[in-house]
């Protein structure tokens, strides 16, 4: 299904690299043990606790991980690249650098660029720019409807052949039930997933979560019901069509209950959320802080807890950064007209690890939502430490405490509400197809 043309990595063979004394973390196999991993070229050649017991290979570069965690490279299934169309906010190159710093080896671009990705030409452009950047792997979704207008379906088949890994209208929900039904139905031909932004557009015309805070600030509220109404309608359509459906950015207890029930009933349904929805609540809006404006909006504390709970019980399959770069001019505005979104590539791992450090979720479970979870939904080959898998790896220090500083981000935009937010866990190395693209010691030289 995947087109290899999307692979941006240089064809130069990175050779053999031995990672020794690593804490191997593989959510696919449930492995959490000290051992070593050998990559050969772009693939994992061997892995295990007793690897190299008989001595280190002489022809490999050796990297002593000194007990740090080695996991499959993170896969971020929800990133806005802003290229083409808004290169003053982000480019494929700057987003790739940000991803590399965040330990993300693959990212998937939302199609709400300008022009939108509703045509193979735009997919090819992104693939070319990613090849030029030579950093992380960049995939892209096609739009469900032409021009994000919610009416006519795009060429799912042709877009799939050119590498689209799924279809979504990005931050716009497909409101028309008939269009959504056809999308879920037609996408079965190409075994593609349909990804929905879970908000009823008419109910979601406000600026923040509906409730006491919105009432005090005099801002129009978006009720939690806007989310569950859209999700429940779609679940009926999934049952009707047999399509594969993924809900992005789930934020409410009610929608999560609906998804939980649908999964139990055996529907092909998955969902994701973003770190802000389990770390922050509506109070972060405070005094009209536009950096805390996101879509869907930050919810009340009960909903935040429900998201945490749904991550723990497996209802939520994926944590995505929902990387949404915006420049100052888009955010330094009255709250109601400021653009929604947070830059997230460089804070995805540490914010997600809070779930582990707070004792909410096991470490392998957190990692599965960042690696094998999205790989399975999108049919990507990464997300595992198995022999033969791509040598996409993230090496990180699980316990290192630090404070998030958006000014130091590689991303062109710094719109994050997490300034000075204390976290634990830091990326030390990012390896894509056997090649170290971020870290102190560059494997390319071997």
């Amino acid at each position, binding site marked *: 299904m995947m087109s290899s043309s999307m692979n941006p990595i240089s064809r130069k063979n990175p050779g053999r690299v031995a990672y020794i004394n690593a804490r191997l973390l593989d959510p696919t196999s449930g492995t959490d043990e000290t051992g070593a991993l050998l990559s050969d070229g772009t693939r994992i050649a061997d892995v295990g606790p007793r690897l190299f017991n008989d001595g280190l290979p002489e022809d490999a570069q050796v990297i002593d991980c000194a007990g740090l965690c080695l996991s499959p490279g993170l896969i971020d299934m929800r990133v806005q690249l802003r290229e083409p169309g808004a290169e003053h906010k982000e480019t494929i190159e700057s987003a790739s650098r940000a991803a590399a710093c965040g330990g993300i080896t693959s990212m998937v671009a939302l199609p709400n660029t300008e022009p939108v990705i509703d045509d193979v030409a735009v997919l090819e452009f992104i693939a070319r720019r990613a090849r030029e950047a030579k950093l992380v792997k960049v995939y892209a979704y096609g739009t469900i409807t032409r021009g994000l207008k919610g009416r006519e379906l795009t060429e799912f088949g042709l877009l799939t052949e050119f590498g689209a890994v799924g279809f979504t209208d990005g931050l716009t929900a497909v409101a028309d039930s008939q269009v959504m039904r056809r999308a879920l139905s037609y996408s079965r031909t190409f075994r593609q997933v349909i990804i929905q932004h879970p908000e009823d557009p008419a109910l979601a015309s406000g600026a923040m979560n*509906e*409730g*006491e805070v*919105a*009432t*005090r*600030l*005099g*801002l*129009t*509220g978006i*009720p939690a019901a806007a989310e569950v109404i859209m999700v429940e309608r779609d679940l009926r359509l999934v049952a009707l069509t047999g399509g594969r459906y993924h809900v992005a950015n789930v934020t409410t207890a009610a929608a999560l209950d609906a998804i939980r029930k649908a999964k139990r009933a055996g529907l092909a349904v998955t969902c994701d959320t973003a770190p802000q929805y389990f770390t922050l609540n509506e109070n972060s809006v405070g*005094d*009209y802080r536009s950096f805390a404006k996101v879509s869907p909006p930050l919810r009340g504390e009960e909903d935040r807890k429900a998201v945490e709970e749904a991550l723990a019980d497996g209802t939520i399959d994926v944590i995505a950064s929902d990387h949404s770069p915006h420049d100052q*001019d888009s955010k*330094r*505005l*009255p*709250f*109601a*007209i*400021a653009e929604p979104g947070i830059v997230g590539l460089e804070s995805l791992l540490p914010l997600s690890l809070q779930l582990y450090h707070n004792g909410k979720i096991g470490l392998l479970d957190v990692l599965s939502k960042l690696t094998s979870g999205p790989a399975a939904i999108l049919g990507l080959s990464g997300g595992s430490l198995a022999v033969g898998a791509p040598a996409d790896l993230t090496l990180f220090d699980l316990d290192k405490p630090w404070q998030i500083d958006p000014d130091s981000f590689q991303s062109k935009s710094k719109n994050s509400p997490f300034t000075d937010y204390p976290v634990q866990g830091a990326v030390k190395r990012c390896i894509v197809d056997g090649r170290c693209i971020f870290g102190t010691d560059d494997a390319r030289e071997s």
Partner: protein
Amino acid sequence: MTDTGHTANILGFAHRHLLGIDGLTAEQITFLLDLSDSYVALNRSDDKKTSLLRGRTVINLFFENSTRTRTSFELAGKRLGADVINMSVSSSSIKKGETLIDTAMTLNAMHPDVLIVRHPDSGAVKLLSEKVNCAVINGGDGSHEHPTQALLDAQTIRRRRGNLQGLRVAICGDILHSRVARSNIQLLGIMGAHVRVIAPPTLLPSNIERLGVEAFFDMREGLKDCDIVMMLRLQTERMQGSFVPSIREYFRFFGLDHDKLQAAKPDALIMHPGPMNRGVEIDSELADDIDRSLIRDQVEMGVAVRMACLDALTRTLRSNSEERAAAQAGGAA
């Protein structure tokens, strides 16, 4: 209500801006109302002009149409001796936000002493206040706050009833979109009044009870035993079948007339921030009933209250320049 008259601070008012009622104490509100009283007397005298703000520049920056609030601020500034400039900025363009910051920077470079700002977006005045060096008075931001209106309403009530403590006040009508309602709910709550809101549920914001008010959908029920009835203007553009189906239905169930007013206390007083839609939210005769209606008093108090706000917010400025003048005089001698 704490009867302090003056706070410990000799300047009386320890805020740089007046962005809302939220954040003010009962003492600070009382201080502003007491100060307003002195200006009521001045405004009724023949020579209404003082030189308190001589040489100072006050700019009325209005991103939304207004006649009475702008005129009231303009008069207040002029009677205090300030140079007052009116600026109306069209907010129809999509880039109104950029205009907001740009306009703030431009005006700031002209060294005004006070900016009075009205803007259609909630929070816009606070955003602007962060970009300028002068004092900012919120002349109404979106559906958020309109602090001088709440102060003048309180002043009007206080002069009639002596006190706000323990009064039962009903605020009726479009609470959802009303900055007047939000500021009044805050102020009346701080001063110990009991506040009710009466409106159809489509015009009540969610969790309004969390602001310390009782909500009613029925006028007679809600008006029972009320001392004060505050009517809000219904913006007719909101009448087109979305929030309420028609004007005649709205007036029938939520318009204030003699019949519904029977439910309130016999001496209940009526208020309205203006401009009124006669026959929409209030019966025309009732609005003109000089025994019951405080609507004209409200307009009069508006000027006095705004003079008090300008006075209070410029005290730090004025005492600083007096000190500088004194220092210069000392240096010269």
